[in-house]
């Protein structure tokens, strides 16, 4: 299984905790959103305060846990929204 690097954009408190608006997460090929979530938790422990609450978006839409990911997609990770 080939490893791949997924670039993940971060926003709001996630961005501040990681001290970066873009992180690189190493995952196996054919990875899912659920596995990316797990990989983020392992590789970026600074995001621990938000664990379990982070939302994942793929190509500007909320992603389901079983959705497959590729390096070509735009992936973002952020806490629950609070606009308005």
């Amino acid at each position, binding site marked *: 299984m080939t490893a791949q690097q997924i670039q993940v*954009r971060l*926003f*709001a*408190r996630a*961005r*501040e905790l990681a001290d970066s608006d873009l992180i690189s997460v190493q995952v196996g090929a054919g990875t899912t959103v659920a596995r990316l979530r797990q990989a983020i938790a392992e590789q970026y422990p600074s995001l621990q*305060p*938000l664990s379990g*609450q982070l939302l994942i*978006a793929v190509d*500007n*839409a*909320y992603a389901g846990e079983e959705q497959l990911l590729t390096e070509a997609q*735009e992936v*973002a990770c*952020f*806490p*629950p*929204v*609070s*606009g*308005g």
Partner: protein
Amino acid sequence: MKTDSISITDQPIDYAVLTEQVRSHECGAVVLFMGTVREMTAGKQTVALDYEAYPEMADQMLQQLIDETRDQWDVHGIAIEHRVGHLTLGEISVAIAVSSAHRKEAFEAGRFLIDRLKEIVPIWKKENWSDGTTEWEHPGIKTE
């Protein structure tokens, strides 16, 4: 049906301009909702709010909001503007204008739009409290 308008801006929102975008002689009703920066929240004093957006996705989600609204109500025009950046007390963070032939649709659609915006549009606010501390508002997460 009028062309709808959505925007994320770092400039002050001109709600008169926004409202004019939806006004029409086909409509007997225009509803304008504005969200403004409130000073007191549960006994704590705010001095400013910082808003951050994921702009590309926010545009998509705002368009989705408009589609969901049009699926449920026969409204004429919808205009939504959300501000980002540093806002002080009383400033407008969001404005939503809706027009329709009769008032019921405009009121209901306007209510739905702001409620749904707060659920799905990727924008966040950070409180700047009067004691000098800051705190992201992330519903469901205790930050202290």
